[in-house]
């Protein structure tokens, strides 16, 4: 196994790519009773059109299939439900779907190997029937309705829709009542067989384990399946422009919710090597904190004027087909927040970054990275999510020192462009 060590956080990752294409990462945590296992496939809500390996013609599937599949994986041919089996073992089991991956997981203190048996069994053995697929539509229907009542979700999705013309990041992960009504067992099997191939999957295990022994345990539980060829993923062409600068929706909320989005160019991401991607991500985190973090003059001003009441959320989201910055929160006057934000960006571009502020924010971000290594859950999920982006999570700790003020100023000019900004508002 390949050993990757980071001396800053004093952690080690053992990594191996098996013959069937499955990547396994084992992160030993001696002395910890808590254990975590997560198995993910590089398949999320973005994959609605693709060419199945061996086929010529593309397949198009309804929105929400990846998430629907996640729900249905638990059902077993012998009539049991794997979630029940895992819960009965006293382990905390779950699954989730994002834009670019789907993952199955459990955390536990005892019964690790029994739970591992079950997890590896159900992920490798789908069992879909007309009846069990129909049944799930009622449950997922209520999940969709639940999100309809979350103003935070609506304001986010509207911001995405204001930024993107065609990119499937626009699609709600859960689909809609209408799209899920078209899902049947054949569609589920086709997607399963395409994307749940070991060569498209990665497994992360974190806890008090010996890596070599754990790898054998994994191999023992794998069924005989060959790596399939490359899955051709078809995405619509996305223009670089935004769709509209402002988008509004009415919902019953106490104060308006806002999301400011900045669409980033994806071409630059593709051409960069992965360490450049990490560097850019760090620089953007530094910039967001300089502009609107807790110690920034903009935050202080907006807070004092009673326009915002809490530190806004600051994030940069990206995959290989989209990238954007999101700033979100609640405000009595979102237009004012947006206007002041733009002013501050302009200001920073003209006057440059203050050296002291830069060093202080960099220290803060370094500390934040270290904190992510506290819990086996956070560690596992971070390594899995970063893997699908082609990133080794340790890179953030290694690259942060090399980020200069000049480089950060360059990113500011490239990414924080006024013609790429949108404002989404949800209010009464």
């Amino acid at each position, binding site marked *: 196994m390949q050993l990757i060590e980071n001396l*800053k*956080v*004093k952690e080690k990752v053992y990594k191996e790519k098996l013959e069937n294409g499955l990547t396994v990462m084992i992160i030993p945590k001696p*002395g*910890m*009773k*808590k254990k975590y296992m997560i198995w993910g496939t590089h398949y999320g809500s973005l994959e609605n059109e693709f060419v199945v390996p061996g086929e010529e013609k593309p397949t198009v599937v309804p929105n929400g299939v990846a998430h629907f599949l996640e729900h249905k994986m638990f059902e077993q041919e012998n009539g049991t*439900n794997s979630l*029940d089996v895992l*819960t*009965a*073992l*006293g*382990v*905390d*089991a779950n699954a989730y779907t994002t834009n670019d991956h789907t993952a199955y997981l459990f955390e*536990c*203190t*005892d*019964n690790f190997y029994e739970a591992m048996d079950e997890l590896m069994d159900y992920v490798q053995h789908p069992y879909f029937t007309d009846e069990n697929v129909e049944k*799930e*539509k*009622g*449950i997922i*229907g*209520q999940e969709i*309705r*639940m999100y*309809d*009542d*979350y*103003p935070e979700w609506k304001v986010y999705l509207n911001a995405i829709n204001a930024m993107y013309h065609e990119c499937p990041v626009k699609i709600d992960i859960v689909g809609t009542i209408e799209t899920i009504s078209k899902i049947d067992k054949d569609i589920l099997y086709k997607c399963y067989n395409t994307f749940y191939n070991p060569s498209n999957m990665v497994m992360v295990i974190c806890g008090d384990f010996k890596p070599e022994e754990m790898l054998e345990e994994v191999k023992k539980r794998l069924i005989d399946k060959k790596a399939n060829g490359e899955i051709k993923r078809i995405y619509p062409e996305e223009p670089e422009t935004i769709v509209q600068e402002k988008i509004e929706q009415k919902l*019953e*909320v*106490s*104060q308006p919710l806002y999301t400011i989005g900045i669409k980033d160019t994806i071409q630059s991401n593709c051409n960069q090597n992965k360490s450049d991607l990490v560097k850019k991500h760090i620089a953007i985190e530094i910039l967001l904190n300089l502009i609107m*973090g*807790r*110690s920034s*003059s903009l935050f*202080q001003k907006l*807070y*004092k004027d*009673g326009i915002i*009441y*809490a530190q806004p959320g600051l994030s940069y989201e990206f995959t290989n087909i989209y990238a954007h910055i999101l700033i979100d929160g*609640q405000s*009595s006057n979102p237009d004012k927040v947006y206007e002041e934000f733009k002013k501050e960006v302009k200001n920073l571009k003209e006057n440059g970054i203050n050296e002291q502020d830069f060093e*202080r*924010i960099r*220290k*803060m*971000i*370094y*500390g*934040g990275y*270290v*904190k992510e290594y*506290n*819990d086996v859950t956070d560690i596992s999920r971070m390594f899995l999510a970063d893997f699908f982006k082609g990133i080794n999570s340790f890179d953030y700790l290694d690259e942060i020192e090399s980020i200069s003020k000049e480089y950060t100023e360059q990113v500011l000019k490239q990414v924080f462009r006024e013609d790429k900004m949108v404002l989404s508002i949800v209010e009464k």
Partner: protein
Amino acid sequence: MQYQEKEIKKGIEFHELNTNKFKTNLVAVFLTTELTRENVTRNALISTILRRGSKNMPSQEEISKQMEEMYGASFDCGLDKIGDNQVLKFYMETINDDFIPQQKEKMLKTTLEKILEIVFNPYIENGEFKKEYVEQEKNTIKQRIEGKIDNKARYALNRCIEEMYKDEPYGLYKFGYVEDLDAINGKNLYEYYQELIKNCKIDILVSGILPNDIEKIIKENENIKNLQEREPKYVMPKLTTRNTEKENVVTESMEVTQGKLVLGLDIKLEEEKQKYDALLYNSILGGTANSKMFQNVREKAHLAYVASSSYIRQKSNIFINCGIEISNYEKALEIVKKQIDDMKKGDFTEEDIENAKKGIISTIDLIDDEQDTGITYYFGQELSNNKISPEEYKEIIQKVQKDDIVKIANSVSINTIYFLKD
């Protein structure tokens, strides 16, 4: 992990959680005081005004800069309602010296100094809280109070509690009431703060790689030295014997696409020990994916995505939550009630009990491996009538029998059925 509790002064406890499992040190300072209609809003305001400035860090900007300088110390304030108490929570988390590049810092000592200064030595001008800060924080609290409608599921739960505890402390909203704000100013708020600090229960919990002289560091801290001994004013939980004669049915309308159904149940306990039986009862009723609620409302009837229940130990209540199609109200309610009745009949297996035990025990095992879980556990013990170690906790859970759970089931009554619809 090594846990020790030490009295710093009467009414002021230091909890030492010595562990080398984490990259960080976590310091928590909790102020516990009786929950009353009179003080609820003022307490909420205190919890936010203190983060605006301290003696040596007179502004929020200055505090934030210092936190950033300390490799991103995270400083958080929270407000909790635990039983009939309001708890003002302050946390500061910093990375351990081992992970600081220069390795010259004494980060834990600095962390303690900073957090104790923020809580016990606030920024004062002319003998009162700074006017500007008070006015701004009144605005922030007003938003918080009005914001209770934003998360519809949480709103429904809060409304159910409010209905069950009309005119009782536990029915109060933890952020208080807008109509109280007008009368509050820098002067009377500071006077109230001094009263609070003099009388509240104070718990200081520290988790991480701790030096041998940690107790001394705390005892010799100037801000701690200035605190007086006290007979702390707070409320220990009682075994409530509420009489529910008739179900109170409340329906409210709001702009929602999904109906939110909440049932508030009362449990009548005869002795303290039954609280553990009730925990198992809740687990089987709606606490896990194997529970009756999840299996019957979600998996068999497909009426909901969320169908669960939670147990409030301090008040002997269980709250059942379901998100359903509005037109399915009757159908869902019938199924929910049937689960409560089936529990009374003892319609669950030994296997269900064993599974529930395993689930609870595994959460107890996490106390050592999750820093905030450890802090929450030991503070929870402070507000419990019989303090027990995690080991004892597990033993008690193991001993619970089916009869004990059936007894709980038969002491359960529905107090309130709350439904939020369009």
